[in-house]
Structures are given as C-alpha cells and as structure tokens.
C-alpha cells in the first residue's frame, strides 16, 4: 500500500487531522489512511501525541491494544528500518487507530515510554525491548520479558537466524532485586518472599509469581512469563500463509478454532476473498462451541483451585462432547487446523446439524448443574466475591478486554461493536456485571456460555443444507482433488499454492475478533510473497496477566490463587 498523497481521507482520519491542526503536533504527525486511520510520528513527539490521543474529547483513545515492533530490513519502500506499531481503541467512539512510531536509522532505537499514559503499555514495551532491542527510557522495569536472561540478541530482527539458541542454567533464573532484599531493617519478621511457580498446580501452565508477603497479605508482586515462548511470530515468518494456521491453533489451545478464524480473516481481508455463507456459519458455530469449551475449562480449573473439584468433572463432560463434534468435522480434538484461507479444510459430516442439536440439548443440563452447585454456594461466594476486584477505570487503563472488562461494566464485545460474519443477524446479549471481582467474572462467563448456545441455535436454524464451504478463487483455495487429477489448469493452481503459498498483495492489516478471553487481533504485513513478512498477535490474556501483579496487591495469597483462575490465562497465547 502506498502513501496517500491526496487528502481524501476517511471520516475518522479526517477528523483526527482536523483536531490535530490546532495543536503544536500538527506539523510533526502525518495522517494516513490504510485499513485503519494511521498516524506516523517520530519518537520524541510520541508521548505528547499519546497523551493528546487519550485526552482529546474527540479522540479519547483510552484502550491500549497492542505494540508491535517491525523490522523493515527486507521490505522495500519504507521510511525507516525499525517501527513500533501501536494499535489503540476508543471506547466512547468505538474506533480503532494505528500509530506508527518511526525510529530514525542509525540511532540507538529510543522511544520514550508511554506507560504513564496507558499503564497497559508496560509489558508490550518490555516485549519490544526483548524481541527488537528498542529502548524505552523512563520505563519502570525494562527487562527481558519472553526470552530467558541468558539470551543474546533480539530474535525478531530480520537478521537473527530463527534457529539460533542460547542455553540458560539455573543461575540465569533472575529474581527481581526487591525480592532479594530481606527487609530486615523494618524489623518486621513476618515479611517474606514467596515464589509460586514456575511449575505449580495453580498456575495451570508455567508462570512464575514472586510475591512479598506481610503476614498473609501480598505487599508487592511480580509475574515472570515467557516460559512457553515458542517463537510463534518468528515461525510464521518462515512459513507460508496456510502453514501458519496450525501455529495459530496452539496460541489459545483451549479454544483453538477461534484463533484460526481470527488469523484467516486478516489474510482474507488482504486478499479480498469472500467465504460462502455455509463456510462462515460452520466457523461461527464451531467458534462459539470453542468459547463454551474455553469457559468450561476456565471456570472448572478456577473451582478446582478453590477446592470444588466436582464441578471440574461436570464441566469437562460438555467439553468431551464438543470434542466429538470437532473430531467428526476435522479429525482432531484439540488443535483443529480446520480453517483455511478462503474457507475450511473440508466440509462438515452429513450429521453435523443433528450433532449440534444434540449438544444444544445436553450442554445446558451440565451448566444448570454447575449453577446449582456453585452460584449460591457459600464457600464459593466467600472465596470469589469481593476478591480480585478491578475498577472500571483501572480495567481500561490496563488494556483489559473480554470477560475481564465486561465484568467491570463495560459492554465491549467485538462481536457487537464491530460485527463480523453474521453476528449482527443473531439475537443475543452481551453479559455485563458491575462489581469487577472474581465472582462477577464467573457470572459473566456462565452467562456467555448460554448466549453462545443461543447464537449456535440460530446459526443451526439458518444453516444451509448444501452449498460450498470454500471460495472458488483458485488463486487462494486448492481446487478439488479430482479436478487436479484431470485438468491441467487445476493442477497448476494446486502446484503453485503448495509450492509457493498464497500470493497476498503487499500491505498491512489489523483484523480483530472476539476471542474467548478478549480482543484477539492479528496484525499482518505482506510483501507479496507466499508467507507473512511479519505477523503480530494481540493476545487477549497478555494484558490480563500484566494486570495480575497489580490486582493481587493488598489481598491474601489465597485470593491471588482464586484471581489467577478468573484471568483465564492461556500460556500458549500469553508467551506465544
């Protein structure tokens, strides 16, 4: 995509330019129109622009979504080698915005931090420091986030070989400086540092929590992540567009289907490919079933942590039943690899609709059982009500989305604020709670499962019995196998797609959908080759986990365990 020379901008971009004109930033910010309104700025002006974007009454970009580093070493026509691409959302205006901070060549890649404007930027900046080597002066804790401390170099730079490893030993596992301080001076003998994890049953994955305890209360905490950093973004740069799909399944592996849908939507938008109605509905139905599976595991695991083991078995059974449906569709239970750019890998089995209807019958029974066992259970209420509470303002400042944000009373759901597929045609509600505590999140998730069932019911009702599931654009979708065997043209398409991958036009795109635990965004850059030049995921649970160390301060250690469960942190997506 080339720069827009003529000032024919979209309405939001035009409005931002108009507002900017009256500020001292007008000269220094370039407004462009790509798939989103895009501002370009150099690092020194970035904090002032950030503050203005957040506070200007006609901008109010209050939700910091993502910061993606980009290395333009092998990409032609760019102004500088390194960029930091920030995505923002304005809740009052319901608009997305992209800001590109262009780092001048030949400098030491410095960007002033914006953690003071959006606290959510904290971990995103640390990630860019780790993976790209950007420096953020003023950042409160600029250390490596994903890679281990013995790592050398910045792996997402284009001149870093994908397979270059560095080995960590026990001595490299660094604790934060404050945790080593024994605090003897205070003469307060009940102070101690507790290390939970990296391998601990309550972390459900490998996450390391270091907490300073005063008696039983947490006075300071820090989470260390990256234990499952398996280089998704680097791997996607070395594969073709379709080969990335199995990797996306392993991001949020508890609801794998949703990730694949989010990713291929970004690619389809870049290609301008439309998926037939039947294909879209299959995606919707299985995505909503995946959302139910996700919430089942999240609630079940959370209840196990607070001692209610039975409910885990109650909630696991619908999951097994949904696995049966997914296995019938694509042959895999967990990591589905079912979607393809332009459609799906195969059509669903003939008994798809009866199977869905049987699930719609059986799942509510399990939910009702859990509801009766848990919702008014006094122990559960004591453990969850009032613990891990987040205020609405904090939730927005920390960049929370999904059930976490809705439990604070903000009805932000991408399926409603920016309807994709057929979500605007279905009759469903966004569950919202007001307390923002663990119990509110539990209630929101329970109700979301019921709403998902409602969506599936409507989708199954309008599900066409016959019809294509794939686009017929053979530049994108593999032609049918019998055509490949009998027809030269199809054979050529097949060969080109398998050997070279889909040719996605050069450009960039941020596409976002409602993942199981929040806004799941994919920022894809293509240079016209068969694979992504850069693919950045906006992982919904990443800000949740970043907020964890702030949420639990002041509470007891047992509340922290209950809170960790309701954050719905999936390590594959958190660490990528």
């Amino acid at each position: 995509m080339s720069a827009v020379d003529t000032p024919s901008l979209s309405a939001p971009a035009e409005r931002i330019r108009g507002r900017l004109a009256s500020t001292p930033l007008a000269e220094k910010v370039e407004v462009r129109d790509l798939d989103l309104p895009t501002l370009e700025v150099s690092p020194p002006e970035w904090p002032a622009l950030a503050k203005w974007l957040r506070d200007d009454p006609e901008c109010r970009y209050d939700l910091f979504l993502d910061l993606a580093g980009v290395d333009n070493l092998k990409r032609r026509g760019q102004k500088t080698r390194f960029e930091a691409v920030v995505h923002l959302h304005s809740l009052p205006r319901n608009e997305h915005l992209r800001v590109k901070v262009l780092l001048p060549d030949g400098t030491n890649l410095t960007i002033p931090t914006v953690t003071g404007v959006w606290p959510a930027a904290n971990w995103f900046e640390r990630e860019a420091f780790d993976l790209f080597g950007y420096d953020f002066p003023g950042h409160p804790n600029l250390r490596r986030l994903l890679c281990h401390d013995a790592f050398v170099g910045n792996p997402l730079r284009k001149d870093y070989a994908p397979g270059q490893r560095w080995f960590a030993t026990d001595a490299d596992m660094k604790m934060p400086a404050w945790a080593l301080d024994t605090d003897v001076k205070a003469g307060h003998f009940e102070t101690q540092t507790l290390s939970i994890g990296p391998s601990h049953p309550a972390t459900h994955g490998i996450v390391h929590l270091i907490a300073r305890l005063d008696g039983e209360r947490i006075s300071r905490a820090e989470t260390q992540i990256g234990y499952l950093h398996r280089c998704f973004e680097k791997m996607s740069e070395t594969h073709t567009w379709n080969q990335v799909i199995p990797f996306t399944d392993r991001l949020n592996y508890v609801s794998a289907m949703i990730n694949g849908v989010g990713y291929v939507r970004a690619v389809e938008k870049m290609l301008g490919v439309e998926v037939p109605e039947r294909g879209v509905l299959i995606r919707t139905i299985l995505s909503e079933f995946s959302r139910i599976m996700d919430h089942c595991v999240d609630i079940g695991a959370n209840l196990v942590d607070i001692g209610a083991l039975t409910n885990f078995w109650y909630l696991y059974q619908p999951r097994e039943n949904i696995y049966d449906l997914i296995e019938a569709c694509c042959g895999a239970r967990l990591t589905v690899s079912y979607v393809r750019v332009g459609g799906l890998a195969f059509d669903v089995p003939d008994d798809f609709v009866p199977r869905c209807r049987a699930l719609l019958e059986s799942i509510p029974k399990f939910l009702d059982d859990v509801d009766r066992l848990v919702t008014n259970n006094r122990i559960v209420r004591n453990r969850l009500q009032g613990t891990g509470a987040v205020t609405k303002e904090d939730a927005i400042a920390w960049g929370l989305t999904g059930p976490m944000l809705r439990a604070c009373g903000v009805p932000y759901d991408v399926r409603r604020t920016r309807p994709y597929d057929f979500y605007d045609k279905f009759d469903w509600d966004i569950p919202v709670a007001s307390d923002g505590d663990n119990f509110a999140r539990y209630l929101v998730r329970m109700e979301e499962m019921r709403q998902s069932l409602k969506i599936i019911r409507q989708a199954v009702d309008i599900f066409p019995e016959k019809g294509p599931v794939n686009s017929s654009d053979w530049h994108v979708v593999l032609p049918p196998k019998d055509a490949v065997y009998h027809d030269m043209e199809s054979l050529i398409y097949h060969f080109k797609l398998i050997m070279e991958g889909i040719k996605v036009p050069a450009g960039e795109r941020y596409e976002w959908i409602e993942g199981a635990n929040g806004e799941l965004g994919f920022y894809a850059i293509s240079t016209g080759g068969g694979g992504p030049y850069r693919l950045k995921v906006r992982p919904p649970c990443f800000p949740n986990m970043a907020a964890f160390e702030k949420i639990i301060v002041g509470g007891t250690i047992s509340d922290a365990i209950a809170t960790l469960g309701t954050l719905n942190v999936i390590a594959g997506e958190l660490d990528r």
Partner: protein
Amino acid sequence: MVAKSQTLPAYDPKTGAGGSTDFLTTRLETMVSWARSNSLWPLPFATACCGIEFMSVVSSHYDLSRFGAEVVRFSPRQADLLIVAGTVTDKQAPVLRKIYDQMPEPKWVISMGVCASSGGFYRAYHVTQGIDEIIPVDVYVPGCPPTPEELMYGIFELQRKIRSGEKSRDSRSARLAAERPA
C-alpha cells in the same frame, strides 16, 4: 509369577497349623515391579496444549485411574512418573531438570507429544529440541497433541517396561550435558 493352589491339612485353631490356602511363588524384584507398575503416581509437567489433553485422560471420560496411575501429584517428592506434556523452552529447561532431580528413585519419564519429544514444529530460537536434551526419557508418545488413547498406550508401554525391569538409556541427555558450556 507362579500362583499355586494346594490342599493342606485342615486348620487347627489350637496349634494354628494347617488350613487350605493359596500362595504365590515369585522373585521379590518381579513382585515389586509389578506393584510399582500398577501404582504410578504421575507428576504432570503440563506446559501447553498437551496439558489439556492430559486433563482429558484423567477426567471421567477416559479415566486413567482404571489403570493404576491415578494419584496425580504436583510435588516431585511424591511422584515417580514425570509426564512432560507440552513444549519445553530453554527458559523452562533448568526448571524441568530441577523437578526431575527432586523426584525420588525409582522414577520414569514419559515425553508426551512431539514438542516434548523433539521440539515438534517449533524449530526455533527458544525451544528445546526434545526434553532428552535435559533428562532421560522412558517412553515417547508422538502426536500433536496425542489423543488420550495414545497417551494411555504410552502408559501401558511404560508399565510393561517397568515389569520387565528394563532401564532407560540416558545417552542423549548425558552427552548434551557434557557438551554444553557450564
């Protein structure tokens, strides 16, 4: 093991002698390994997607407890079977080694899934290319993730191995540990 049934003189309550009974003749090692193979206490080192399938295996539908590997422990001190379920990264490697070292002997390791077995399709800068770089492995279970049936088959294979008294070969992890800079 050979079980034999033999008729003895009638039981005399005064002397305590006699009475009909069944008895076993076996070697002590065989008896012990038979008992061990059917009372495995697994520690799930569940890092990623495979951990979710491990949950399925211990849940009601597949119910691993039918085969005597029921008591899932999260403390390495109480476990004798380490199931590494999921990708192990270089950042986790020291953690995994420490957990393995903390387990009492005798101990066994199942590598669940291709990531744990070989790094899987993550041939990348932060991923350990198989946990046998770090610890010896008894049974490798392929699959991404393995189905519950596959993992259960892996556990049966381990039980067979324990009963046969076979020892695991520690060649790769020992060689790599020697080669690796301290």
